[in-house]
């Protein structure tokens, strides 16, 4: 009886083409795509880009030594391009993931949004559209540049990204309005997600909370002990780089470029470890809610949870270890990211099986 009641509750909370289903599918797909993009970026772009940045700085130092101001300007032009290339790819990765997290979050709060089902569905469609267009626009910024743009510094790709961001804000404001309407009546517009007290749900919830807590502790440690020191070190290294280059000491200038690269690396790995561990924690907590919809045997559900939590711990730890172990740790971190993607896709497959099963049963009636 309990199983029947639970099944009918799960069914009622996951109607075909409902807003909740759109948010869950769209959210998981955005997160998986964002992580895959991040992994590809880390393997094929990140380190190569850092190497090219170092080369551009050495070129700038040579120009300083040769009294060549236009050469130094040209070198920084190239460096700016490299930084934009890297920055827009990191931003596309982060924004795609965050849109995915927000979609899962919105799936959770749908019972508290007092709007018609048609409006909810339209908002879900708009949100997923914005979640795809925002990172796409950011990704294209580097390639489109200012071509055909009527603005001085903003190109069409930026306009696309900003418009998609505005679309996401609009959907969130409508959700807030729906929540405000709910507070007036206190009547749920649909059933809450079923609270499943299974091992996969509990492991995701507890593991997720611990990951977030660890991320906060690491962030506080980094901000307290390293942030200001790193900022001062950067200026000092640049001063020394300029000083030795102008004395025609190119070997020392190259050494300072290496110091600059190491410092940038130290900052990058700390920030990446901090943000990834918190985001994976949040993801695990969110995924604990969709476990009732994962139509797989308990054994396979547990496997995907272990793969996801394992990857969530491996990636940030080995990102931090990159400073000591170099590319080996980088490779293991990328593998951790891949494990998270695999765990996520495994769960998505389970949810797809569930919805297929549900829709087939509905169609047979």
């Amino acid at each position: 009886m309990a199983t029947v009641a639970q099944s009918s509750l799960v069914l009622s909370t996951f109607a075909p083409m409902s807003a909740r289903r759109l948010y869950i599918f769209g959210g998981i797909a955005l997160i998986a795509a964002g992580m895959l993009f991040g992994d590809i970026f880390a393997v094929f772009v990140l380190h190569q880009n850092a190497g090219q940045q170092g080369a551009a700085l050495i070129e700038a130092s040579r120009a300083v030594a040769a009294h060549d101001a236009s050469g130094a300007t040209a070198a920084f032009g190239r460096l700016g391009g490299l930084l934009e290339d890297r920055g827009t790819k990191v931003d596309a990765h982060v924004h795609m993931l965050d849109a995915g997290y927000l979609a899962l979050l919105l799936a959770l709060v749908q019972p508290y949004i007092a709007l018609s089902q048609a409006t909810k569905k339209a908002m879900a469609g708009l949100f997923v559209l914005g979640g795809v267009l925002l990172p796409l626009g950011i990704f294209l910024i580097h390639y489109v540049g200012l071509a055909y743009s009527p603005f001085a510094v903003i190109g069409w790709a930026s306009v696309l990204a900003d418009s998609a961001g505005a679309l996401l804000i609009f959907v969130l404001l409508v959700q807030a309005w729906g929540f405000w309407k709910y507070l007036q009546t206190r009547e749920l517009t649909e059933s809450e997600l079923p609270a499943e007290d299974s091992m996969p749900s509990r492991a995701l919830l507890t593991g997720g909370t611990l990951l977030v807590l660890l991320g906060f502790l690491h962030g506080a440690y980094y901000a307290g002990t390293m942030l200001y020191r790193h900022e001062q070190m950067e200026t000092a290294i640049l001063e020394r780089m300029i000083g030795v280059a102008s004395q025609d000491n190119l070997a020392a200038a190259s050494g300072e470029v290496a110091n600059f690269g190491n410092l940038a690396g130290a900052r990058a790995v700390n920030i990446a470890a901090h943000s990834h561990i918190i985001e994976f924690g949040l993801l695990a907590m969110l995924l604990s809610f969709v476990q009732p919809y994962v139509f797989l045997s308990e054994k396979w559900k547990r496997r995907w949870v272990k793969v996801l939590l394992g990857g969530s711990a491996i990636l940030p730890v080995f990102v931090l270890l990159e400073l000591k172990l170099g590319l080996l740790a980088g490779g293991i971190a990328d593998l951790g990211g891949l494990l998270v993607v695999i765990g996520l896709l495994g769960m998505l497959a389970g949810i797809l099986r569930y919805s297929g099963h549900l829709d087939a049963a509905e169609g047979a009636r």
Partner: protein
Amino acid sequence: MTSSRKLLVLGGMALAALGMLYGLYYAVFVEHQTLDQMGGSLTHAFASAAERNWSQSQTALQAYAATKYDYVRQVDAHSHWIGLGMLMIVLGVLFGRVNFSEAARQAIAICLLAGSAVFPLAVILQTYHHDALIFKALAVVGPALVICGLAATAWGFARHRTLA
């Protein structure tokens, strides 16, 4: 819905919307100009050094450091407001599983929400007064409140299981 859950969900939505609005404003009106200024200052520092104009080079380098200081904090505030907002909403949905009295849950929720609002705000305010101790102190108090709130929440989840 209990008041602690309402506080977290509403507060979280407000923080996420605030973070996004700030991000949109920043991307449209400030970011491109800031990045241009940052790149321009660094280029100017090297180009001036190539012309052996030390004072201009030094000034440009200081301008680069100051602009980057602001840029890092403005981006951090945007991402932390949204991230913390999302965390508040998730915790709001989950807060029924935190096995404390509603009064204790309210105290934890206030702690979490206050820390989440104050921390990015203090980080932004640092860009207006780089060495103001009060803003640095607030940037420490904010995360401390969130960490305490989160630890209490984790404890509440654990108590739920032992009592079940």
